């Protein structure tokens, strides 16, 4: 897959703090999760990608264009959705989105037409003529996403798009982000919510304290651990644990009361199935346990 962002030795320092420290990146087109705690350097990286800030060292390219040499050209290719409130509150959603379409270089008529289309896409077709000031948090986030994609960018930078959303709003926003990838728009999703990244991103970049922790495809990070989770209901946990232990399997109980059994192959899985059947227990769940991004982050991030 072609690179959408390339950075080499990217460094940005502010008085008293190094926001980015010699970061090398090679991000593929697709959905990339940019993960890190607050202050990890995510927003600084966005500022550098947009050419709004100048690196102290290193270089960065977007779609093969050097940001230092042609920041205006790069901005023509990028849509940006900031984390904070950033919408003119007394304008309608249609006016806001079409204005930012025009600012992105679209002719007036095309901007209004595309504003209508993308507002429809993000689920605001009914509310497009209402002032943004009367919108809920979820509607404002959708409007921000609409203005980011109205000019048909090659790359969209999304800074905490699910911030402040309720669970259903969050799922809807993630579904929209997921769809952007299928539209051929590369996405860089900055968040501190690892679940969001695991759900929609093909590639993960982890930053911690301005340093690159991980830059790898999501699949390679979420590998199998050689452990299965067995759920037979809360009343039979001890009975099953004893029976599996008697067959020579290593068994532990996790925080939710389910058994985690270390398995070496299909024979061990057959053993688990047979033991459950012999005891006459209901088998609610038997799944491979995967590494979570939390595990990766905790294990790879340097200790404070």
């Amino acid at each position, binding site marked *: 897959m072609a690179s959408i962002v390339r950075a080499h030795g990217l460094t940005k320092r502010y008085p008293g703090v190094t926001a980015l420290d010699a970061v090398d990146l090679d991000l593929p087109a697709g959905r990339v999760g940019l993960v890190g705690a607050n202050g990890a350097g995510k*927003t600084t990286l*966005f*500022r550098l990608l*947009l050419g*709004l*800030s100048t690196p102290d060292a290193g270089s960065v390219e977007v779609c093969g264009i050097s940001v230092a040499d042609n920041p*205006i*050209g790069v*901005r*023509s290719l*990028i849509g*940006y959705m*900031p984390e*904070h*409130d*950033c*919408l*003119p*509150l*007394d*304008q*309608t959603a249609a*006016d806001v989105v079409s*204005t*930012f379409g*025009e*600012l*992105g*270089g*679209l*002719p*007036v008529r*095309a*901007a209004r037409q*595309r504003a209508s*289309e*993308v507002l*429809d*896409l993000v689920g605001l077709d009914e509310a497009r003529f209402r002032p943004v000031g009367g919108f809920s948090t979820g509607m404002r986030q959708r409007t921000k996403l609409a*203005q980011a*994609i109205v*000019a*048909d960018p090659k790359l969209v930078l999304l800074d905490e798009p699910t911030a402040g959303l309720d669970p259903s709003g969050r799922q809807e926003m993630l579904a929209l982000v997921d*769809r952007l990838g299928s*539209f*051929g728009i590369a996405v860089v999703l900055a968040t501190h919510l690892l679940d969001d990244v695991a759900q929609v991103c093909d590639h993960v970049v982890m930053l911690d304290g301005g340093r690159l922790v991980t830059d790898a495809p999501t699949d390679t990070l979420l590998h199998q651990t050689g452990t299965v989770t067995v759920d037979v209901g809360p009343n039979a946990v001890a009975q099953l644990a004893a029976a599996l232990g008697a067959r020579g399997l290593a068994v532990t109980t996790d925080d939710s009361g389910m058994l985690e059994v270390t398995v070496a192959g299909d024979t061990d899985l057959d053993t688990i199935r047979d033991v459950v059947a012999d005891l006459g227990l209901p088998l609610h769940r038997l799944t491979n346990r995967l590494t979570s991004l939390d595990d990766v982050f905790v294990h790879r991030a340097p200790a404070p």
Partner: protein
Amino acid sequence: MSARAATGAVYDRGYRPYDGPRGGRRAATAALYRTSLRRAIGLRRPWRQKVAPAVLLAIAVIPAVVNVGVGYLTRNTPAEGFEFITYREYLGVSSALLLFVALVAPDIVCPDRRQRVLPLIFARPITGPDYALAKVGAIFTCVFSFSFLPQVVLYVGQMLVTKGGALAYLRHNTAVLWQVPVAAAILALFYAVLGIAVASLSGRRMVAGASMLGVTLVTSTISGILVRADGGRPGSGGHPAALLNVLALPLRIRDLVFLGHLHRDSPLSGVAGGGALAVGAYVAVVGGCIAVILSRYRSVEA
């Protein structure tokens, strides 16, 4: 349910890539200018926002209409040819212009900063100077239009009611055809850069508007006190302290455009090189305001 409805389907129109023409930095600046101009004159906004430009236009045009009306009513009387206002006097004397700029300049600048729209704007192919140009251009267009349009009404009206006929009036008043637009442009540039510079210093519209009025009020008061304290009187020698009156500066340049020299009633008229000093002060104020505007939008927080 009809058979047609039963076979209907909901279509997800999805997302269509855009492959049409696309502008760059210049198009983005023009778009921001159009948006700011629309906002300034209240288009696509509640009726309350349309009051200020409508009132200003009415205040600006009424004297021209009255002057033309008087000319028409007195055309065959001994009072024929009397003009109670000249083109020079008519330009820039209305305090409604100042109030309009104090109201509208903050309205097109302050919300961008207060509502944190600036990072979103500067994430587009646009720079700080482009932003400043669009905002100053919007105010310039308003002030120029509201200064120039009444003059057009006055000129055309006078042509139509003059006893000698329209062509004769045109022959005798050709100089006005360049003097009015040039003087109106000088006035509009001054108000536009001053209004945007003051408004760029605050995120609150009320504060910015009051500051604009305060700047003009304080400078005119100080100038008046200094001129009078030193014995200067209009038409009796003049005093360089009159240059401190920011609001009157473009009027001095207007006089130079129309008369070729300062008007005899000007508090600068007796000062050696008063005209050059006025031009210098005008350039200094405009240059200073542009420097303030550019510095305010040089770096933007994303």
